[in-house]
């Protein structure tokens, strides 16, 4: 099933663009969730042969990235009763273009780096970079705090893809630790978001710029 | 001798004015008379006021000791006595002016202010001159500077010596408060420097001051004369020439006083700066 890797990665990239283009928060979150699930499947595909902890990682990944976190975020927006991202710092279209540009750039950049033989021609590295770039774009252009969490999630997804390149190098428990950290991180963010909502009765970061020179 | 100079000056001026004038020895009579008088003090004053004249006279005397008269070595001479020479006058000035301020009178304060202000400009002029002399004689003692050795100094540094003697002459006029800087016998206090400082002094004190002033004139005069007439040969002739020179100097001062008008106070600094520049130019000449 190794030949599935390429197509899956392309889908991931498409989701990146979708994330950049859409304004409805629910859609954004769902997209990120789907991306998470895809990553879980990718884990199996990248790794030839079958091993128990590989399956474990897959399951945990799908659970964390595809179910738990998106669920939390969805609840958050339900409580906050916000539907969509109004006017981001950069419009959706330019954002989309930037994303596409970034993806192209990461393809080129990955060329410059000498790849190990098994990854030559594989999309893993460029996809990782493109996803990281997407995450950054979301983080820096969106106004809603929740959206920034999503951006962070996407960023992590990109890094996860990079991690796939050295599945053998990274011991099991470290993987677990990373996933756990991610989860707890998002969890704490969720708590803070909750406080923010109660404090300012909104999740707009405009309220969060009181501290400045 | 010092007071005689005053007499000569007086005579000259009288002659210019077409009068007979007071006798040559008149200043002596004045001083003696003053010394006999009783004294009057302002109740504002303190001991500083009484100290003023004494210090003035003593310092003048000490300065006189350092001066080589007419080509003869000074009674006291050592490396760097020229500094002592200049600073002794400084000490005298300090106390004279302090005494003036002691009276708390506006006019005397004014006089003191002018005195110190102008001395700030005469001192550099004096030292420029001294530098030239050091340069020419290669020595740091007045006796060798303007002593016997001065003769051949004229050969290689003549031009600058002329400049120096001229600027020293201006210094002399200023220090001894003569026209064109100050008018010793005007009647308007506002225009005076030295005289107004000593307004409140009377009797013996005034006498001391008069004598000290004359002595100062004599000392500076002797330096100027020596530089101008660097004769060194037969000692007696030396004395004679020196005396003659002093008389000429006195007459010259008299002439200046009776021909020139007193400068406005604002213009005096310009004159003095000019004096500084003259001797500075003298340095540049010997620098070649």
């Amino acid at each position, binding site marked *: 099933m190794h030949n599935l890797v390429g197509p899956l990665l392309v889908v991931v990239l498409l989701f990146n663009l979708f994330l950049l283009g859409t304004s409805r928060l629910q859609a954004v979150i769902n997209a990120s969730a789907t991306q998470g699930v895809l990553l879980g499947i990718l884990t199996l595909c990248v790794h030839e042969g079958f091993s128990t902890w590989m399956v474990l990682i897959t399951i945990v990944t799908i659970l964390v990235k595809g179910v738990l976190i998106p669920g939390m975020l969805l609840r958050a927006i339900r409580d906050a009763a916000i539907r969509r991202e109004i006017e981001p710092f950069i419009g959706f279209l330019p954002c989309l273009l930037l994303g596409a540009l970034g993806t192209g750039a990461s393809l080129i950049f990955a060329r410059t780096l000498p790849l190990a033989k098994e990854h030559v021609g594989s999309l893993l590295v460029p996809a990782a970079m493109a996803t990281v770039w997407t995450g950054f774009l979301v983080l820096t252009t969106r106004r809603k705090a929740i959206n920034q969490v999503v951006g962070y999630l996407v960023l992590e997804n990109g890094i996860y893809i990079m991690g796939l390149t050295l599945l053998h190098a990274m011991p099991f428990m470290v993987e677990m630790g990373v996933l756990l950290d991610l989860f707890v991180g998002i969890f704490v963010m969720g708590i803070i978001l909750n406080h923010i909502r109660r404090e300012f009765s909104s999740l707009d970061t405009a309220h969060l710029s009181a501290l400045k020179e | 001798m010092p007071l005689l100079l005053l007499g000569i000056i007086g005579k000259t001026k009288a002659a210019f004015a077409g009068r007979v004038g007071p006798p040559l020895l008149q200043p002596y009579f004045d001083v003696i008379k003053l010394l006999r008088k009783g004294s009057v003090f302002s109740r504002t004053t303190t001991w500083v006021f009484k100290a003023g004249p004494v210090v003035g*006279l003593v310092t003048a005397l000490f300065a006189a000791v350092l001066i080589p008269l007419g080509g003869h070595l000074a009674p006291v001479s050592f490396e760097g006595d020229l500094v002592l020479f200049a600073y002794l006058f400084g000490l005298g*000035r300090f106390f004279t002016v302090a005494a003036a301020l002691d009276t708390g*009178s506006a006019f005397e*304060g*004014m006089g003191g202010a002018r005195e110190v202000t102008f001395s700030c400009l005469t001192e550099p002029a004096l030292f420029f001159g001294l530098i030239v002399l050091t340069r020419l004689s290669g020595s740091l003692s007045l006796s060798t500077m303007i002593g016997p050795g001065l003769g051949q100094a004229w050969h290689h540094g003549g031009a600058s010596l002329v400049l120096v003697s001229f600027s020293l002459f201006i210094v002399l006029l200023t220090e001894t408060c003569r026209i064109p800087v100050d008018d010793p016998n005007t009647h308007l206090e506002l225009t005076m420097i030295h005289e107004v400082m000593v307004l409140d002094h009377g009797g013996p004190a005034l006498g001391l001051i008069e004598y000290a002033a004359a002595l100062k004139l004599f000392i500076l005069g002797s330096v100027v004369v020596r530089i101008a007439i660097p004769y060194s040969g037969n000692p007696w002739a030396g004395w004679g020439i020196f005396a003659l020179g002093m008389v000429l100097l006195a007459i010259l001062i008299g002439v200046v006083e009776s021909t020139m008008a007193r400068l406005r106070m604002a213009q005096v600094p310009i004159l003095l700066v000019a004096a500084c520049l003259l001797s500075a130019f003298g340095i540049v000449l010997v620098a070649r």
Partner: protein
Amino acid sequence: MVVGALCGIVGASLAIARPSAGIDLGWPVPGGRFAIRIDGISALFVIQIFLISALGSVYGLGYWKQSEHPRDGRKVRLFYGLITAGMALLVCAHNTMLFMAGWEIMAMAAFLSLTAQDDQRTVREVGYVYMVATRLATLCLFAMFAVLFAATGNFDFAASRPITPGAATAILLLALVGFGLKAGVMPMHVWLPGAHASAPSHVSALMSGVLIKMGIYGLVRVFSLFPHPPLWWGQLVLLLGCVSGILGVAFAISQHDFKRLLAYHSVENIGIICMGLGVALLGRSLGNSALVALGLGGALLHVWNHGMFKGLLFLSAGSVLHATHTREIDELGGLAKRMPWTALAFLIGAVAICGLPPLNGFVSELLVYLGLFRSAALPKDALWLSGALGAPALALIGALALACFVKVHGAMFLGEPRSERTAQANESSRFILAPMAVLAGICFLVGVLPWVVAPILDRAVVAWAPELTGQRLMALAPLCWVSLLGGLLLLALLVGAALVRRNLRNKPAETVGTWDCGYVAPGPTMQYSSSSFAQTLVGLFSWALRPKVSNPDTRGLFPHPEAFTSHVADVVLDSILIPAAQLGTRAMRWFRWVQRGSMQAYLLYILLTLLVLFFWR
């Protein structure tokens, strides 16, 4: 504290007697060695430090009583001791790190004691300026010692290997800025007037008398590392000295606040010291031992003397301040009747600082003069020109100082009091008078018996330039003549005074009011005020002083009461530095928008940094 100081003096005198004593312990800090060495130069300074601080602390008992200053009395005493300790340490340190430690202890303790009354706004501002200046100095010293280490490879005050010209130049410039700031050489004097003015008087005495000399010590110490300095070093230092001297005294003349005035005179005297140092440098680069001996001897002796008479002046000024609670010269007057001893002390100090015989100031200035004249008699043109311009400059400085001190002494002590407070002033307590008496005595001692100190100076000269140990100061300078004539002068003055007294006893003198040329109602306000006294001179120097003169013309039959006033701010500080600082602050304000609270912007910074680094690679 006094006891400790006395012990210090004894120790230092021993050190003078014996060849250079020294401790050398390991000191486990990077580059540190606890190396204490007292050579001729250090000894001079040590004695002075302990002497002045001992006297000052006695004075403080009367001047800064715990009962009068419950809040900061103890504090001031503590830091007073710390300043002394720091100075003693840095003067004896043979290791640069140790030097820095002493230096900074001194600087910080000085800051803390001069801001003793930090509830006053001006004191706080002054303290700030002082602290900034002293920090700049410290940083220059950091750099200088770093270069020195790079050049010599060790942390001691000893050039183990010859220093390259480039490094030497860097060291010179850094030293001039660093030590010059502390010493208050003219363009770098900005902190000095305010600090001296608003510190407690015995602290000002210590600062002006000793602390700023630490800058001089540093210069001397650093220059001693260079056996063959280039010619222009000496000329540069000489020039700095002239500028500092002339402008310092010019600023002094124009002051109304007598402590500020004294502070500017410190700038002037530092100038004179620098002139001496410059002569010594010239001499060293020419290998002319006479110049070295005269210049350095004069400079160091003047360091000493200035410590004495400036200490004396500040202490007596403090006693006036203590009695009248004003620093305005034009509010004083007639104090000679009310506080005779203070007046006498101030008079002695004034005569000394003007460099008039027979007091100590004259001796040191004489040495510097001799050095200048000698350098003027040297063959080389470029060189003797500097000397030739130096001597008249020194003469000008002397004359100006005389004018200034006649003015301030006259205005403060003579004439009639100009204000009510002044009229009710009383003489200060014994604690205040005794130290002044001691200092005055020293002024006379050094002035009349200069040959006593000559050997000490010789030792210092040897320590400074070991390779040029030709001539003894006694041989070069007419010290015996000076003491002879000085003694005679004093004698003559006493005799004259006796004569006058007898004369007066014979002919009883009558006392009347001052003759005021027929004015109807002469009053104290008609006296010549200090600003009027200085008017002409300030005018002469207006190009540098930039005085703000208000000279209202009084027209009409019955003009309103008007006053002639002229105020001179510190040009360098108020017209150059502060505006520049404000400009810089405004420029920095402009960057504030970077930190504007928007998370997105912050994350963008991170992204940009990443990209920049990637492309830079």
